[in-house]
């Protein structure tokens, strides 16, 4: 179980780094799907190896919600946006360097958790947390609504991974509530972005600067 969870979480982190690196929206969306599928595989693997039936169901729902429904909505949101040219002078190098720092930070912050117990999956916990932190960074530095939503979803995925690795699955009602919440957030986001686009002819958040002080 240790090998499997470490490998899957590591691959998830690599995909997350690729999301930071890539600039084109379709590529990032495909990477997000890949990350979601990896996490679903993680949940499924732990479900099988630790004999948790519930996790298999969670993995299945995760594939449907994060691997199919939400990417479709995201594609719909992104379809009106012209493919942004890779802006010169803003390379992802610096951000990538920052993510390196975040991975180290993730290991430090998660020390109390990883040292508290002997779990076969404990090695992967900081990796999942690093995913969450990188998602947060993406969300904060995102230049348009799509960047914000993607960052938020990567963040959410990281927390999901951490929850699976640390607890082998939360109580069903909470798990269901989380899925429902994420789905509704994305749908509301879509509605809001549609409005933003109608008002401003763009989803560039630099134009949202009415409210100050």
């Amino acid at each position, binding site marked *: 179980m240790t090998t499997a969870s470490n490998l899957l979480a590591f691959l998830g982190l690599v995909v997350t780094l690729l999301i930071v690196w890539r600039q084109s929206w379709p590529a990032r969306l495909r990477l997000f799907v890949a990350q979601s599928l990896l996490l679903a595989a993680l949940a499924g693997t732990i479900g099988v190896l630790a004999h948790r039936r519930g996790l298999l169901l969670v993995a299945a729902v995760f594939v449907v919600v994060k691997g199919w429904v939400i990417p479709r909505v995201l594609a719909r949101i992104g379809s009106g946006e012209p493919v942004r040219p890779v802006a010169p002078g803003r390379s992802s190098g610096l951000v990538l360097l920052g993510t390196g720092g975040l991975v180290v930070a993730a290991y430090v*912050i998660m020390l*109390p*958790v990883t*040292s*508290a*117990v002997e779990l076969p999956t404990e090695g992967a916990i900081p990796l999942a947390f690093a995913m*969450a932190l990188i998602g*947060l960074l993406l*969300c904060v530095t995102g230049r348009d*609504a799509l960047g*914000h939503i993607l960052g*938020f979803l990567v*963040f*959410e995925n990281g*927390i999901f991974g*951490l*929850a699976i690795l*640390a*607890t082998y699955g*939360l*109580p069903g*009602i*909470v798990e269901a*509530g*989380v899925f*429902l*919440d994420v789905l*509704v*957030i994305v749908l*509301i*986001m879509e509605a*809001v972005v549609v*409005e*933003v686009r109608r*008002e*401003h002819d763009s989803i560039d*958040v630099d134009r*949202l*600067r*009415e*409210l100050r*002080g």
Partner: protein
Amino acid sequence: MLEALLAIPLVGAVLLWRAGGRVATTLHALTAGLTLVTAIAVGVEVNRGDALVALGGFLRADALSAWMISLIGIVGALAASEAPRYLAHTTPARFYPLFHLFVFTMLLAVSTDDVGLMWVAVEGTTLASVFLVNFERTRASLEASYKYLLICSVGIAIAFLGTVLVYFAGIQQFGDEAHALRWTTLMRLAPGLAPRVIELAFVFLVVGYGTKAGLAPMHTWLPDAHSEAPAPVSALMSGVLLSVGVYAILRFKPAVDVAAGPGFARSILLALGLLSLAVAAAFLWTSPNYKRMLAYSSVEHIGLVCLGLGFGGALGTAGALLHIANHALAKSVVFLLAGRIRAAYGSAEIAAVGGLMRRMPRTGAPFLAAMLALVGLPPFGLFVSEVMIFAAGFTQGFPGVAGVALVLLVFAFAGLLRGAHAILYGTPPREPAAEVPGWRPVLPVAAALLLLLLTGLAWPPGLTDALDRVVAIVVP
């Protein structure tokens, strides 16, 4: 009874989804009225006997829940009474159902025993209210709702991380404890939980739920959302939504105090409380918009509540909880009146408003009273609760923190009064529309002010007892 409390606003919201015209207004009034009556009944029932439990322990209302439930009922009814007046000038599309859905999510958050479900409900408050913030569909309100949704969703996801870690600590120590996410279980397990893990979890929980509570530096969504939302929604958000965030933190605090020692939560709450006070004191002076000014005043008062909880002890905790109630009453009154002012003057800029006392006396007089209450002057309740909080600060051994807070409070006091003065007196650049005739609009506002006088001058029977019961839960 708890089932009824939650079913009423939910059923009301569902029915209101298709209703229109007169039917909608009547149904809205009926739903709000029934919610108020049930909420008060729950409050009385819990304070007479034991905690109410329903749905196999899933729903549970102890004295702390009952305190919040009564408050949500009262502020909900107050805001609901203003809604038809607000909607008279616009199309009421979906306002009523979302309003009651919003109330439902808040009631659910404070009346469940499961901290996981509490998390879902707190997230639900954002989802239910985001369209209400953007109800007027202007550029500014759109921006406000976007920020609100994004910042609060991220915040609440951080709180989820905290909840996961609490659950992790629980099952690590005690194996697969059934209901390890139940608050009652958590309190039972607390002495054995790994302190380092619980500390880490509490940091995430405070950042997460603190975002919802509007604590600085996570408050940035608050002035936008509060100032752009329709007046009844601002009243609900400022009056009770912020306190629901505080409530969520409060649920975890006793367990953290037991597992990690009382100093940890205290230092975090004191630091955030002071920071919120400082941010609010600065922005109360610079806000050109009176609804924004009122929003910053909410940051100030939530900061004070945090200080009270941080100082702790029976006095500090009781003061903080009483302050939550007092602030809820005063702030919802002020926001409702601000809505009327904005409707009459056609602007939310302080510079565009003036001479309120003379031009709209039936709005101006209660506005003055509520503002005086809000800055913490006697004979209103906020004076009493602020004295309790600061007395706790000085007696519990934090004279430094309390002293700095007092200085900041004076700054905030002056800033808010300056704004109020500009609104109430002088000559406006443009004459306002005529005030709504008759005394009916004054009644709900007067009732709330009367309650504030009661908490300030003569505590009604049962209040001391209710506060004692709440304190016994937070500081066991």
